[in-house]
């Protein structure tokens, strides 16, 4: 018998049917995540069928898309969602506290070795701390809320090994864009991406979240990091102790493919409209004037991201032709950014710091793009029309690149100096 990957082991530990040969396995889940926009779609069916939640203590619900709501229609949807959560007496209802994926990884419900499903594609982000987490639609999530189970097909695994030393200007965002350029938008379709961090020093937790988050842009079902000392530190800091199980792959685990990325060779990457896999090195890009810069979303609104922007904006000004919107991923991150003085640095430089929510990421509010807008964004998707008008154009980049472009007023090949080696 060959060895097992992390996905194999976590699925095996959660299987609750008897048929080892079945294509789809029935599994129990440890936690369920939902937000206002997707959960609202299941409320009618849930109530009409007279269902009840299998274990309300394992459900985390957050209103993040319409927080606070921008239109009367969305206020009504938000109110329905909140009323449902309160009727169901969900103890972990987080109202106006930030983006659900960030709230999940800040919460004790999300534990290493766990299997988590959520009504949003970026649920996969919890893989950054050794969790097999995956997104589904409202109907699947309704089923799981009622039964505590779901169906999964055992995925093939692609191992991705990081080695070398990540240059100081680069981040997890540049790494995952590089991976998107290798695999494309469907290169990990139905698969588990298993990340082996052998770099020196190890990647920061925030970078791991950014990479795991965008695993779904490559089509992956899971994007899970092999847990290590960085993972343990995170849990100990969060919960006071390691409460979950560190699940590591067997040495002879069977991988469909192995990908090696030498981080030492990496510099800033950009995804051009309208695909996250339309990636080029920033140094090869034609300069392009921008009207809008966005630092936020579940992919990149964490403290180190905001710190990078504050670094770049200290004693500088946002270009007068650019609207630079910054959104901390959660209120906890916001509080840390306030204490560290980053918010003052950013606002003094002319940036707008908005309430923790999805904002313009999903074209929702607070910076939606018009036809002529060109945006550089730290969010995870630059799909056509996603951030606003069908003609608008979004380039994806790291938080540091977003901040530099906001100051310069353009996304230019020399944002990091002529040779790309400018140090701050």
């Amino acid at each position, binding site marked *: 018998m060959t060895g097992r990957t992390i996905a194999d082991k976590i699925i095996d530990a959660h299987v609750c049917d008897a048929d080892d040969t079945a294509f789809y396995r029935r599994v129990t889940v440890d936690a369920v995540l939902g937000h206002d926009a997707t959960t609202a779609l299941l409320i009618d069916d849930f109530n009409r069928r007279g269902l009840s939640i299998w274990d309300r203590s394992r459900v985390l619900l957050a209103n993040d898309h319409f927080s606070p709501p921008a239109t009367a229609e969305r206020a009504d*949807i938000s109110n329905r969602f909140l009323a449902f959560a309160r009727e169901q007496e969900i103890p972990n209802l987080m109202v106006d506290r930030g983006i659900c994926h960030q709230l999940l990884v800040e919460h004790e419900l999300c534990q290493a070795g766990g299997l988590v499903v959520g009504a949003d594609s970026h649920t996969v982000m919890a893989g950054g701390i050794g969790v097999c987490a995956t997104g589904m639609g409202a109907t699947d999530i309704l089923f799981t809320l009622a039964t505590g189970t779901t169906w999964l097909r055992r995925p093939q695994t692609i191992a991705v090994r990081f080695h070398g030393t990540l240059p100081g200007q680069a981040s997890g965002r540049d790494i995952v864009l590089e991976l998107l350029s290798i695999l494309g938008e*469907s290169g990990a*379709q139905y698969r588990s991406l298993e990340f082996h961090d052998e770099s020196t020093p190890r990647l920061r937790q925030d970078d791991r979240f950014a990479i795991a988050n965008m695993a779904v842009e490559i*089509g992956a079902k899971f994007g899970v990091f092999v847990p290590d000392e960085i993972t343990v530190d995170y849990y100990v800091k969060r919960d006071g102790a390691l409460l979950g199980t560190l699940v590591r792959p067997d040495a002879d685990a069977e991988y469909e493919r192995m990908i090696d990325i030498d981080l030492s060779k990496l510099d800033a990457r950009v995804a051009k409209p309208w695909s996250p896999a339309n990636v080029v090195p920033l140094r090869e890009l034609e300069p392009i004037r921008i009207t809008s810069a966005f630092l936020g979303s579940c992919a990149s609104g964490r403290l180190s991201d905001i710190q990078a922007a504050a670094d770049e904006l200290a004693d500088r000004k946002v270009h007068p032709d650019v609207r630079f919107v910054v959104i901390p991923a959660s209120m906890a991150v916001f509080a840390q950014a306030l204490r560290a003085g980053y918010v003052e640095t950013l606002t003094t430089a002319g940036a707008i710091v908005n309430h923790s929510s999805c904002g313009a990421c999903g074209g929702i509010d607070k910076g939606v793009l018009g036809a002529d807008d060109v945006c550089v964004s730290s969010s995870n998707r630059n799909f056509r029309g996603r951030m606003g008008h069908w003609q608008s154009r979004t380039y994806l980049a790291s938080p540091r690149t977003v901040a530099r472009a906001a100051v310069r007023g353009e996304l230019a090949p020399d944002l990091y100096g002529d040779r790309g080696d400018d140090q701050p």
Partner: protein
Amino acid sequence: MITGRLWLFGDDVNTDVIHPPAFYSLDPDKVRRGLFHGYDPDMQPSVQPGDVLVAGRNFGCGSSRETSIRAIKLNNIGALIAIDFARIFFRNATNNGLPCLTFTDPGDLSRLHQGQRIAVDPDAATLRTEQGEVLPLTPPGEFVRRIWAAGGLLELLPKAGTARSQDS
């Protein structure tokens, strides 16, 4: 048997293109009108019941928002055929009883063209063109057939009052 016109798409068509976020709503009429609105504002008004979406690789990648499936169903699109589907989209469609089938030979995609009349038989897993050409599709597995037969995933839920589901 599903008969209608064919609407042809390329690779990596994402759910924001299928159904732009601005049309997210609980109002069925608004959701219905949003289908491919940015991509081709003239498409939705001319979609007829039984029409079929045919695409290349990775159809439905991106967001999990089930409004994209609702929009397809509200426009009475009968089936989706692609070289392959994105994971969450495939689940959502199947859970809602909307047949998603894949080409047995991906090369067959190039035999089809926009606006052509076709007939899709989900049970036999075939696509027949009006010229009489029959293209084989890959039959869905037993589990997917069971969801189709039940009329959607929620019909597999244990009925209120029964202690266990009947699925074991």
